[in-house]
């Protein structure tokens, strides 16, 4: 087994035992990338030199007794919508080709301070808009479990990298499921924290009121390790939580006995693949066998969550992406006037999905339509949050599939935006409410494709979420690895 296949926790132990150095670890990861990248295209940029330097520094520090904690010397991948000082950051868009940010995103800075070794920048759907990582201006990422299939998205590059072993863990961003869905489709743990728990400073905004940065890892323990490093108040993000952070480990190991678990009625039925439903049902039964009290819970507004999301997110995006205009950075397509230059730059620099969402959002906000579309969507968002609150009076956590389907073939949904949007139907409600949610791999379908199980909890209930997730992980005993990894 290669060092590249270790979990973060295992690698941290090995580094401290002196079994190997950070330099060897990063070399193993870079070697894996060299083998897999041609086929997977998980990365847009691999920072060989930077990664080796950081690893060498970690070795020196650890040797001299400076221990920055469990991430010290751990190779991680960063989604390419996280700003990295001096390292190209494109958001998988032509409009940012060659763009080198002058600063690190807060989450990136915190990872560096924790001694982590950034390997490179991972592929995504352009500006995180998509569910398959096919909307990348630089070509799609493939699923390590089946390279004819998508890895999910938009953090598909991060998920593929971790699944393939070209990183031990990764950061993604989740606006409507963009961490959890690719994690599910790649057999990984993917977690979206409570909105405000992780600073968004330096995350190139898609939909500001929904975006959160979170971990994609092989285990729940690794997800906690990454989250511990990046969570916390940031004075540079006015929406970041300034109160006390919960101790993410405080409930670990307590099991699920007596815990009230709600199955979301609305997230099942037609459109859910039988293998997915069966795996989820089996996990629920296992939890019940462990003493959990399981009941069905109805959250009727979930039926319109997708609709609300596809008004709110594009509306915010239409403003967030207005700054890409060819004036101060990024692509410029010449024009005789400022207006023409901007309009051409944007039309040529953005891909079709981004343009579609900008148009959609602009329309939803425009005079005469605001109240019926954007305004109404925002009020519906409040109703969805109320539905959650009512559900949490009856149960402690909610569970569902993470995605209605397993990884789908490349190209299967690219011509049908609405079908693509339906990939996020289970994950979107947590974003709208700002609640934490996590996807844990629970098995493979008959074709050998991973299935994810989603756990949702109230705001700031990460300790509870991790407690349940750890139980799910233990019960699932999911230890399969994609073929690309097995020798």
């Amino acid at each position, binding site marked *: 087994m290669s060092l590249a296949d270790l979990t973060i926790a295992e690698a941290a132990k090995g580094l401290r035992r002196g079994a190997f150095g950070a330099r060897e670890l990063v070399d193993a990861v870079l070697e894996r990338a060299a083998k897999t990248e041609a086929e997977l295209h998980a990365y847009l940029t691999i920072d060989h030199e930077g990664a080796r330097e950081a690893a060498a520094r970690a070795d020196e520090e650890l040797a001299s007794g400076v221990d920055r904690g469990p991430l010290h010397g751990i190779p991680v991948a960063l989604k390419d*919508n*996280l*700003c990295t000082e001096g390292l190209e*950051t494109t*958001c998988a868009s032509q409009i*940012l080709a060659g*763009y080198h*940010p*002058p*600063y690190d*995103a807060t989450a990136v800075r915190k990872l560096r301070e924790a001694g982590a070794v950034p390997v490179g920048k991972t592929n995504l759907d352009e500006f995180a808009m998509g569910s398959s990582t096919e909307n990348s201006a630089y070509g799609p990422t493939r699923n390590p479990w089946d390279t004819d299939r998508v890895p999910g998205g938009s953090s598909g590059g991060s998920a593929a990298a971790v699944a393939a072993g070209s990183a031990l863990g990764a950061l993604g961003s989740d606006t409507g499921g963009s961490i959890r869905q690719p994690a599910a489709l790649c057999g990984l743990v993917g977690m979206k924290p409570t909105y405000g728990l992780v600073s*968004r*400073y*330096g*995350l*190139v*905004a898609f*939909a*500001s*009121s929904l975006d959160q940065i979170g971990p994609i890892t092989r285990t729940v323990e690794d997800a906690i390790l990454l989250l511990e490093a990046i969570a916390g108040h940031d*004075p*540079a*993000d*006015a*929406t970041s939580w300034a109160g006390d952070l919960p101790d993410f480990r405080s409930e670990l190991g307590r099991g699920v006995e007596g815990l009230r678990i709600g199955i979301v009625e609305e997230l099942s039925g037609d459109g859910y693949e039988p293998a997915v439903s069966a795996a989820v049902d089996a996990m629920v039964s296992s939890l019940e066998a462990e003493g959990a009290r399981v009941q069905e819970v109805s959250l009727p507004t979930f039926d319109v969550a997708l609709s609300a999301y596809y008004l709110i997110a594009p*509306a*915010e995006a*239409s*403003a967030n992406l*207005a*700054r*890409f*205009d060819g*004036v*101060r*950075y990024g692509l410029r397509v010449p024009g005789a006037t*400022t*207006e023409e230059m*901007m309009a051409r730059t944007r039309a040529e620099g953005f891909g079709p999905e981004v343009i579609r969402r900008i148009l959609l959002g*602009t329309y939803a*906000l*425009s*005079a005469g339509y*605001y109240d019926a579309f*954007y305004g109404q969507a925002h009020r519906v968002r409040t109703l969805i949050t109320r539905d959650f609150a009512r559900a949490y009076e009856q149960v402690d956590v909610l569970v569902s599939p993470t995605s209605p389907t397993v990884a789908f073939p490349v190209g299967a949904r690219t011509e049908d935006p609405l079908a693509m949007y339906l990939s996020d139907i289970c994950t979107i409600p947590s974003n709208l409410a700002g609640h934490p949610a996590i996807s844990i791999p629970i098995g493979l379908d008959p074709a050998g494709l991973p299935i994810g199980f989603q756990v949702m909890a109230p705001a700031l209930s990460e300790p509870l979420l991790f407690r349940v997730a750890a139980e799910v992980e233990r019960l699932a005993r999911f230890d399969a690895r994609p073929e690309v990894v097995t020798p």
Partner: protein
Amino acid sequence: MTWEPVIGIEVHVELRTDSKMFCGCAVSFGEEPNVNVCPVCLGLPGSLPVPNRRAIEWITEIGLALNCQISPVSVFHRKNYFYADLPKNYQISQYDVPVAHDGWLEITVDGETRRIGIERAHMEEDTGKSIHLGGGGRIHSAEATLLDFNRAGVPLVEVVSRPDLRSAVEARVYAQELRALVAELGVSDARLEEGSIRFDANVSVRRRGTDEFGTKVEIKNMNSFRSLERAIDFEIRRQVDVLDGGGELVQETRHWDEEAGVTRGMRTKEGSSDYRYFTEPDLVPMVIDEAWQAEIRAAMPELPADRRARYLSLGVDPQTAGALVGAPPAFRRLFDEAVDAGADAKAAANWITGELVAWARREEVDPAEVAVTGAGLAELVAMVAAAELSASAAKDVLDGMARGEGSAREVAERRDLLQITDRGALEAVVDEVLAEHPDAVERYRSGEAKVVGFLVGQVMRASGGKADPRVVNELIRSKLDET
């Protein structure tokens, strides 16, 4: 005239905070281009705004000074439009819940005082600056545009009046009052020439006696109070001419051309002003509760309106009170000190706003450097009241005091300016004058009473101007009448 002008003014005030509205870049004027910029104010990908607490306190001060309601919960919105000097292509501004709303400002024109309604005062960020190259600075024929983002993100307060103004003069006075107010609060440099305070006018006309509004035209680009007044005057006449000629007005934005003295329509695309406002998701609501408001209020300086009322209550006449309200701070302090030292307020105010202001201007001395003290001014006022100094001698004394030559009495003595009130001393001079002018004495006796004035003048001259004219007058009359 059958047409009544209806005018509203929008004022943009740049706050002189140390740092910008949403980032830590310095607020400073006249620097090299693009030196005070950072990821936030340049709109770099991933950056986020964090509001400046002091700017919020200062807009609250402005709101309170304008007698506004302060919204207990206030939110920022994004105002979306594309323009090269707007880094994010949206401006963080406020829409339906501004920090302050529904206030008023009093203006006095031709002795008549009116309350002009304030619709709102809201917080926003300034844009960068565009320099249009070529084409003589005209936008349309420029060859390129240079952009400097030093100003981008400077805190900007927009104060919108109700359409309560009825003439260009009123509009100008309103603008001046508002400028004086923000300068007084110390929250803005409020310099028109540097653009730290900017005025736009909304002008329409309607038939006198009707209530509905006519077609509104917005005028921009007025860089002085004079051009504000001229532009509005021109625009009123233009609109009346169009309507009298049977034409129709279009709702539009017009630029004031200072040289030509006309307003000109700007090229705009139809429907381009759909700003698609929505709540700024990068910011959380602001709660300016009673306790915070009270803190802010306590830190505010005395405002012009309050100060005027205080002066009036001390017996200062309205015109002088107005002048004193606008006098340099050092002179207003002098007034307060003089009154504290027992001076008659009305007289002290007259001396300050009349003689002392003129003296400082004439001598080109900074008011803060003028050496007159409150006690000194009180003494001077008392000496004049006691006829120890004539009005003209007192001016000389004040000159000496202002130069730091000592107290009123010391200066009066040193310059030999004390008035002679001693009857004995004056009697001899009077006798002398009467003896020198027998013809005048004769004319008086034949009933020409006004010749007394001539004789008083002669005595004054003989005394070197120091004789108390009242005493002299009395002495002359009694002497002429007794024989």
